[in-house]
Every structure is written in structure tokens, then in C-alpha cells.
């Protein structure tokens, strides 16, 4: 096992983690501010990917496609916030789980009805395809490197938005005391719609970006959704910092586990059985990680409240 391969896998893990962060940031923000558990977040991811694929197919421009993904996901997010989600604040988690589960059913089948069951394809634009040579003569796909950069930039932007702007102050205040901030004259309903739309836009962006390296299809959002939940539970629900660290942990564990666990088992088992056990364990690795974290700290790494 060469150092080159290890570095490449670490980069893959980072790329995966950073994309998970885009999903998890929205989820954790929505939970932190509105106390809402949103299963339909994966649908917004899917909507972003479909919007991007449709626009890229029509115009051929990747930048326009990303813009469309952001816009359509944000609008869809704002719409479901105003029609359904708004009624769920302050209700039992069971109600929230069910109502958003219902939204998944509606969105998945609706998309299947609009676009059919066959996957769509979103191509990486020419100026982002092909490998680049990193220091140390490592060849790595430019697009994946771009994803890492975009993810980190969005993370930075989100941090600046929350820590450095007026809206950010209102969001943080909304997390702590919604009656107080409403009394101070902030339109809390509008703020909630905005937070939900921001979360939705991030999910849509992630969907479009990942859609270019995987296929765009109905049901693509649910596996990512569950991983994003694992991320925010590890990080502590409501904490953006936790979501970032959790996302990298999950991305790296999943990618590196798939490569190294079978190798590890080969040290003391016969190759066939080692591959079988190793890959079985690797596919469960992040869930094992999550249960260990929860057993150690029942509210996650950076979580304050249950």
C-alpha cells in the first residue's frame, strides 16, 4: 500500500465529507433554529440535482445549472416551509418525522412522474475535467478538488453569515429565545422561512455537485440524508462546527474503511474471508462510529441539549 494511494484516498474522503457537510449544515441549522427534524432534506438534494441536470441539458452551461439548482431548491424549500413545515414547529418529533416522511413520498413519486424512472446525466464541464498534478506527483481529478474547495468556501461563507452579519445575529438569537427576538421586532416567520431556504439551497447545491460524478435519479437523496443525520448526530444536533467535524469524520471513516479494513483483516485471516468480513464491517463502520460516539456522549461531540 503506497503513500500515494493513501493520500488519494484521504482526498476522496475529504471530498465526500465536504459534500456531506453541505447537507448536514442545513439540517443542523434547521434543527438548531426551529427545533425541526426534516427527513425531506434528501428530497431537496434530489430536486437540486434534477434542476441542474435539466438546465444543463437545455443550455449546456454548468454554471447556469448550479445557479438553477440553488434557486429551485431554495424556492422549493421556502414553499414547503410556508405550506407544511410551518405547522410542525413545536410539535412532537414523531409528527415531524411522519410529515416529512410524507413529503419524501410526494417528492420522490412526483419527480418520477415528471422525469421518469431512468437516471439523468449531468456532465462535468471541460474546464473542470481531467486530472491535475499535485505536489509530490499525485494525480487527482480536478473536479473532485474543486468540490473540496467549494465545500470549504461555502463552510467559510456560512460561518461568516452566522457570526458576522445582522441576519446571523438574528438566527443565533432565534436559536436561544424565539419569544424574545419576536418581541424585539424581528419577523420570526420570515426568518424561519429564510433559514429553511438557505438549508434547502445548500442541499440543492450538494445534489447538483455530486450529481455530476454520480447519476441523477429518484431516491438519490435518501442515502445521503441518512449519512447527513449520522453526521449531525455525531457532531451534536444544532452545531455547525459539530456538523463540519462530523462530516469530515464520516467521510474519512467511510472512504478509508472501505479500502483499509479488508487489508487489515488480511493480516490475520485468509484473503477471501478477510475481504468479506472487511467490506461488511466497512459498510457498517460509520454507524458503529455513531453508536460509539452516542454511547460516550449521548448528545454528540458538540451538542448542548437533547
Amino acid at each position, binding site marked *: 500500500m503506497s503513500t500515494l494511494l493513501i493520500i488519494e484516498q484521504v482526498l476522496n474522503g475529504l471530498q465526500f465529507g465536504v459534500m456531506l457537510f453541505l447537507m448536514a449544515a442545513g439540517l443542523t441549522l434547521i*434543527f438548531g433554529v426551529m427545533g425541526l*427534524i426534516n427527513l425531506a432534506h434528501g428530497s431537496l438534494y434530489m430536486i437540486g440535482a434534477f434542476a441542474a441536470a435539466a438546465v444543463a441539458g437545455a443550455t449546456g452551461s454548468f454554471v447556469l445549472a448550479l445557479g438553477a439548482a440553488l434557486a429551485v431548491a431554495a424556492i422549493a424549500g421556502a414553499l414547503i416551509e410556508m405550506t*407544511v413545515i410551518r*405547522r410542525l414547529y413545536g410539535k*412532537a*418529533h*414523531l*409528527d415531524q*418525522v*411522519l*410529515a416529512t*416522511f*410524507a*413529503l*419524501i*413520498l*410526494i417528492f*420522490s*413519486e*412526483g419527480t*418520477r*412522474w415528471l422525469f421518469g424512472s431512468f437516471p439523468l446525466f449531468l456532465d462535468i464541464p471541460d474546464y473542470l475535467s481531467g486530472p491535475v498534478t499535485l505536489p509530490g506527483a499525485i494525480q487527482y481529478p480536478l473536479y473532485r478538488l474543486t468540490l473540496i474547495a467549494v465545500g470549504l468556501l461555502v463552510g467559510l461563507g456560512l460561518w461568516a453569515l452566522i457570526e458576522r452579519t445582522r441576519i446571523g445575529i438574528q438566527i443565533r438569537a432565534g436559536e436561544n429565545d424565539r419569544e424574545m427576538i419576536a418581541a424585539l421586532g424581528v419577523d420570526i416567520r420570515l426568518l424561519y422561512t429564510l433559514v429553511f431556504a438557505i438549508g434547502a439551497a445548500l442541499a440543492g447545491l450538494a445534489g447538483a455537485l455530486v450529481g455530476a460524478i454520480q447519476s441523477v435519479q429518484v431516491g438519490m437523496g*435518501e442515502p445521503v440524508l*441518512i449519512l447527513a*443525520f*449520522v453526521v449531525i*448526530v455525531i457532531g451534536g*444536533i444544532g452545531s455547525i462546527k459539530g456538523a463540519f467535524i462530523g462530516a469530515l469524520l464520516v467521510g474519512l471513516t467511510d472512504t478509508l474503511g472501505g479500502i483499509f479494513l479488508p487489508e487489515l483483516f488480511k493480516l490475520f485471516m485468509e484473503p477471501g474471508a478477510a475481504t*468479506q468480513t472487511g*467490506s*461488511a464491517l466497512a*459498510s*457498517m463502520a460509520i*454507524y*458503529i462510529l*455513531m*453508536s460509539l460516539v*452516542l*454511547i460516550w456522549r*449521548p*448528545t*454528540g461531540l458538540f451538542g448542548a441539549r*437533547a
Partner: protein
Amino acid sequence: MIPERLVNWIVFAGLLAVPLWAIVVDEPFTITLVTRAVILAIAAVGLNIALGIGGLVSLGHAVFFGLGGYAMGILAYHAQTYTSLDLFGLSLAGTKSMPIIWLVAVVMSALAAWIIGLLSLRTSGVYFIMITLAFGQMFYYFAISWSTYGGEDGLSIYVRNGFPGLNTLVPIQFFGLCFALLCIVLFLNARLQNAPFGLALNAARQVPTRVETVGLNPMRLKLVAFVISGAITGLAGALFADLNRFVSPTMFSWQLSGELIVLIIIGGVGRLYGPVVGACLFVALEHWLGALTEFWHVYLGLILLAIVLFARGGIIGLLTGKEGAHV
């Protein structure tokens, strides 16, 4: 408004009448549909003990459903291939006998529920929902990568397992068996609800601190409820696998866990017959709407949304005009 007891009797009579009518008009497929509803009802009754009485929102009950299914699949697979099942140095023979399979399914799922419960009950609220979901995914991915028993493709069993004195391949006889089990499970549930244990569990859901002050351990109450709940759902899993003569990792999928909760909510949370009504309605919708449109899940979603937002008591709540107990 109809009294709840009457609703229960109507549902009970309907479940018996429809298959009998199907025999008269010779429509065996209807019997299979009702059997499916009965089995899903058993699974949901199991979940309702944890969810309805104990307030434990488990999004991982597919674990037990799947374990029951695989208990049946693995035992029957070894019986039909005449191979032995090697476990910890023991060489066991497979079996095609339902009572033994049920016993194994119940014991395995109870054991899994005990371990998962011990770990998960340390958390609460959203974290509990998420950790049960994570356990579900763990089993799901394990089943997919476990190629000995079919991996992603699952396991087919050629002939339905047998029950002494019955020919289980005759739809109505298999239905009778499942229906009898549903009755037993419902009876247990009714007894449990009014027994000291059920009352204490109910209290532990509402005011854990008070339960603790009178000297009861809410954690232990919830754990026992979770184990009973998992065992019943496991039994349903074994039956479900026998109905289809097929097991696959989808029995572990989180959508299934979600659907089990949906059954309860449609019927009415914390009500004895809630899961039964929910399961019947679900299977009926799946059959009729599924025949009308390929996209029947949209309508299921809309109905679910309407129930969560406007009819918190589910169908039984609507019929009896009472919202009923809630989580």
C-alpha cells in the same frame, strides 16, 4: 360518533369475513392480501407497545422484522439444501417447522432488542430516533454484504414452511394461522396495557421523574417494553418471509421502519386496534391505488400529511371522535 369497542369489533369481524367471502367467490389472491395486512398488523402492534405506550419513537424496527425474516430464511435454506448450520463450533440442522422458526425469530429479535435498547435508551428525543435508525442501517448493510445468504439478492425458499396438522400452502389455512397469532398478540397487548407493568410504562412516558420517585426504574420499564416490542415484530418478520417465501435486505430498510410507524399513525397511536386498522388501510391503498396509478405513493404521502396535520387521532380517532392518547 361510534364507540371504540364497536370499531374494534367491526374491524375484527371484517378481517375474518373478507377471506371467508373470498373462498366463496374463489379469489385466493384476496386472502393473500388480507394475510399480508394481518402480518403487517402484528409487526405494527409490536411497535405500538414501544411507541404508543412507552413513547419510544423507534425508526429502526425493521431490524427485528428483518431478523425474523432471516431466521426463517436461514433455517429453511439449510433445510432445503440439506446442509448444516455451523455456529460457534456447533453443527445444527435447518428446519422447515414453523413453531421452531418462530421461536428462533422471537428469541433472536428479543436479544437484539435488548442489546440495541441498552445502548439506545441512554439517549432520548431526536438522538433516540437517529440511533435506532443507525442500528437499522447497520443490519441493512450487513445483510447486503453477507454473501453466504444471498447478499443483495436475498434468499428464496421453494416451499412454505409447515405447521403440524395444517397445509400452509392453502392460503386460507396460512391466513388462519396468522390471524390466530394476531389475536394472541392483541390479547397480550390488551393485558399488558392494563397490567401494573403497562400502567407504570405509561407513566414513565409521561412523567419519568415521578415514576423514579416512587421507586420504579423508567429505563428498565422502557427496556422491557422495547424487548417485547422487538420480539413481536420479529415474529411478524418470520411470517412475512414465509408469506413471500423470500427474504432480502429490504426487510431491514429504513423505509420499512418508517412504514411501520405510518401504519400506527394512520390507525391511531396508542390504541389497541390502531395498528390493525392502519395495516388494513395501507394494504388496501397499496392494492387499489397501485392498480390505478403507478405513483400511488404521492397519495399515500398526501393522506399521511393530512392525518398528521389535521387528524391526530388517526382513523380510529376520526370514527370515535376522540383524539386519544399521544406520544
